[in-house]
């Protein structure tokens, strides 16, 4: 892959923005500005950045509750995302969804879904609509390896293969479904095989390596666009933080976490760029500064926003206008 210095800086700053944005979100959670569930993506940044760069603005994206990173990369405003997490009216879902339910029609971001595997069949449906309407778009659907134990995963895979829909299924395998390790939840731990079993082209990649993810995603997306057929991509990664803010992490050793942190996707990418002289320390500092500013602005924006009047409680239970 040939990338110019501007491209690599953009990729690095996207990963860094996710990291700093979420660190700030965690801080705001402890200050009780953000409530409910908050699932951090820290450690997995290379997956969202590497996969989403392969998409076009017209493509559809569907995610889980661990979706702040994807929303940022997709181009949603950090301030609007932060406002959503604050429960404010100016948030991307009017504050009604919070952290787990970021939605944005402009960037075709069909949400954070908080029922594990609940969105996979919908992704098939989006693909089906694109196919029927002969739109040259694809749908990209992210989920965890935990989701692959649900019947919904298997039904969606079969339908996708049967109906030949242009969907990229991306499994973010971070080795734990909440506190239950992969080895306790999957008899067949070679996850890639589960796509292949349905006749879907499947691949897997080191999800801590941005360039590798980009390459795998580009290949997958190219083939989907050419053939109109689904692809199943497993990205092997790790979450550095707890499952959510309520998790005491009794199920894994600190040592294991530390070992994975040695493979921090941001540090590795930065080191690679420094080595290849695509980036110098000054550039990096400038990126850090820019990202910090964006995050501060996001918080300032969220703080300045308002809460929806309680009189509007019942709004959007049903549509206000005809279709």
């Amino acid at each position, binding site marked *: 892959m040939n990338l110019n210095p501007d491209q690599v800086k953009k990729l690095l700053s996207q990963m860094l923005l996710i990291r700093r944005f979420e660190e700030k979100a965690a801080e705001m959670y402890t200050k009780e500005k953000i409530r*409910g569930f908050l699932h951090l993506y820290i450690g997995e940044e290379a997956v969202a950045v590497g996969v989403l760069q392969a998409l076009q603005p017209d493509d559809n994206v569907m995610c889980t509750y661990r979706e702040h990173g994807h929303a940022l990369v997709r181009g949603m405003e950090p301030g609007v995302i932060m406002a959503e997490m604050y429960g404010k009216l100016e948030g991307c879902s009017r504050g*009604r969804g919070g952290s787990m339910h970021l939605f944005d029609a402009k960037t075709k971001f069909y949400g954070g879904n908080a029922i594990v595997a609940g969105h996979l069949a919908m992704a098939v449906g989006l693909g089906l609509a694109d196919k029927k309407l002969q739109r040259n778009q694809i749908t990209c659907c992210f989920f965890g390896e935990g989701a692959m134990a649900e019947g919904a995963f298997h039904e969606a895979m079969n339908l996708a293969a049967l109906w030949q829909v242009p969907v990229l299924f991306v499994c973010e395998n971070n080795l734990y479904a909440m506190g239950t390790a992969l080895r306790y939840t999957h008899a067949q731990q070679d996850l890639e095989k589960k796509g292949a079993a349905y006749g879907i082209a499947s691949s897997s990649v080191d999800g801590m390596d941005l360039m590798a993810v980009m390459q795998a995603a580009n290949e997958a997306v190219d083939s989907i666009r050419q053939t109109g057929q689904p692809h199943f991509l497993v990205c092997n990664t790790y979450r550095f933080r707890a499952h959510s803010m309520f998790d005491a992490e009794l199920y894994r050793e600190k040592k294991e976490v530390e070992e994975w942190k040695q493979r921090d996707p941001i540090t590795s990418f930065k080191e690679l760029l420094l080595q290849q002289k695509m980036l110098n320390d000054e550039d990096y500092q400038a990126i850090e500064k820019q990202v910090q500013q964006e995050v501060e602005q996001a918080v300032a924006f969220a703080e300045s926003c308002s809460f929806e009047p309680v009189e509007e409680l019942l709004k959007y239970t049903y549509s206000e206008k005809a279709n």
Partner: protein
Amino acid sequence: MAGNLITYRECIKQAIREALLADERVFMMGEDVGHYGGAFAVSKNLLQEFGPERIMDTPLSEAGFVGAGIGAALGGMRPIVEIMTVNFSLLALDQIANNAATLLHMSGGQFNVPLVIRMSTGIGRQLAAQHSHSWEPLFAHLPGLRILSAGTHEDARHMLAPALADPDPVIIFEYTSLLNMEKELPEDLTGVDIQKAKVRREGKDISIFTYGTGVYKSLTAAEELAQAGIEVEVVDLRVLRPLDEETIVASVTKTNRAFVVEDASKSVSVSSEVSARIMERCFYELDAPVQRLCGAEVPIPYPKHLEDASVPQPAQIVSAIKTLLQHA
């Protein structure tokens, strides 16, 4: 005699431990019940104490492990299946409605299903629309099931044993918002009657019928109303199916006024059913129409002020009852 303070969480845990110790056939399975210690720390250390044969971590496969629970019950075990929260229970609804609830009947009485399903339920932690369901009415709709609602510490501690002794499938709803709440348990209490509703407070002016988180809310409201000279009777329905009509009728016959409180949205709810039964059985006892305070008809929003506005609050119970009594 006063017991020691105990959290609702600890009540559930003690009940599970007791059940595991009492009967070798009992085992518990569910998502994150083992290594994680339970999504709400209810089963913390039980894996260490009882081992992986009796505390089984399951994959995310609600339909699978609930179905397997039904099968294990048929095969002679006494499973406690934990569905992490009610929000995920619909993935298993087919197993519950089409197998657990029907096998005894369809088999002409040959195959009963001695299964207990526990799930945590409720609104109040700003978890937004997909994680704030109050689906007790949905399950209470299904013949063949016994539906219990543990709205008090006492029931959280003592409902499990009789549920396991029941030959038929029992679902116990537990309430996440109560987990950290401490109460004293009566020391002499050793069991609860899972056939009957329970009068939690006696009164003569009006009956509140409620369940789940409505119980403590209604008791708080009753306390305040007592200051104003209004004697409220609080009836914890607690057995949502089959409904204990006799306790309801007795209370209405005594107070002549009925008020029903629940978090679930109003339409086609437990309160709809209770109101209808009162109408059928006690019409001529009533001094005023039955009134209800229920959840708003909306998917639950994330922000605190909107979430609070979506479910009955004690202050609303107080003012509604004052109004009702004035106008009667």
